[in-house]
């Protein structure tokens, strides 16, 4: 018999996680204390231990970058549009006319550096970021706030990538559009499937 692959998470993997620290980091994004406690639990209190640890490390490091650049202007990001992070219940449990969503939205402004606002491509990106189990989707959303904040600070300093000046400043993708494109299948590790109606 060949040697068994050891894939256990070392004990104490998540011992470095400081939930109060992450709670403080997210205060601007989720102002309500109880909502934020829920989001923090989903990001670093649920799911496999190594994911909890990864989420904490990446969010802490990104926060460090943002702090070094002068802090996050969360309201400026929020004003440029957000989409909800949907709660993934089975289809038969969905409440008609009411999207079940987490209390942390995904900011769309950072994505407008990659695709025009309101475009199917941007909607597909948002769908990819908000898909999957909540410890992924909510950590993705939190990271997007921090990445967006960092990019904005870099742009203010004239050192970072400029936002596309010719981009369509149309509305951000609606809740329905985001929900319609929640599925983000990446067969064989390839690129996300093209949303219906997208230009080739």
């Amino acid at each position, binding site marked *: 018999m060949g040697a068994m692959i050891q894939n256990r998470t070392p004990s104490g993997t998540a011992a470095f996680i400081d939930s109060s620290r992450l709670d403080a980091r997210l205060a601007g994004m989720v102002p309500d204390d*109880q*909502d934020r*406690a*829920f989001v923090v*639990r*989903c990001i670093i209190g*649920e*799911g496999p231990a190594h994911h909890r640890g990864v989420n904490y490390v990446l969010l802490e490091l990104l926060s460090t970058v943002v702090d070094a650049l002068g802090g996050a202007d969360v309201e400026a990001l929020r004003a440029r549009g957000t989409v909800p992070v949907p*709660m*993934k*219940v*089975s289809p038969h*449990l969905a*409440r008609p006319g009411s999207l*079940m*969503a*987490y*209390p942390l939205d995904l900011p769309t402004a950072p994505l407008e550096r990659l695709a025009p606002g309101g475009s199917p491509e941007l909607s597909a990106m948002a769908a990819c970021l908000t898909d999957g*189990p*909540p*410890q992924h989707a909510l950590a993705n959303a939190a990271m997007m706030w921090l990445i967006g904040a960092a990019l904005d600070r870099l742009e203010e300093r004239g050192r970072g990538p400029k936002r596309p000046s010719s981009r369509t400043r149309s509305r951000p993708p609606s809740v329905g559009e985001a929900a319609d494109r929640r599925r983000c299948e990446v067969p064989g590790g390839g690129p996300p499937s093209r949303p219906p109606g997208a230009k080739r």
Partner: protein
Amino acid sequence: MSEATVDLPSGLDQAFGAVAGELGMATASWLFVRAVARCSGDEGVAALADRVGSSFTVLDAVARGWLAGAREPRTGPRPVLEALGKVTRLVVVGVEATFLDSLIARLDASVKIAMVAHSPLAVDWGRLLDNYGGRVERVDLDTFQNWAGKRSALLTFAYGRRTSRTTVLPLWLRASGSDVRSQFHALVAWDVLGTPLELYPRWLVEIDAESFTHVVP
């Protein structure tokens, strides 16, 4: 428990099982302990624990508490209300009639309440829910997630705590899978016993108390 000499009616264990199904283990225990104490005094309570306690561990704990001087369950809902916070939907996993009555009386009328209709004991769910006059809706194990949301909470009843472990209905394990945990804002255990179980917890299961967002004493 000391050897009991009081002669209690036969079939008490069956009667207790029937009552516990619709009222809950702790509520039924208080009912039985009081009734027996009224008829046969502390000796009768000791006999009840000896006779039925090994099958129904919560009854044993309540009887021991009675013999140690406890005369009322602690049903004050304030810590539970604090744990639930701004919840707008509450799904109750398990039954404890006395405690639920106390909680529902203080819960804001705008809060929707449901109960997961599932029990290892025989329960007439229609009769049980009729007691709440339409205030509590029936949900099942395959539909209660319909109540999930950022202002939704799951509440169950815990039966004592010893260090980091607490004892709950097995139904809680069926209902609180990893998918559900991240769909409800709060996962609350209300310790309706207040004392650790001393006997093997038949009908119940031990879990890590930290798996709840709140364990309310």
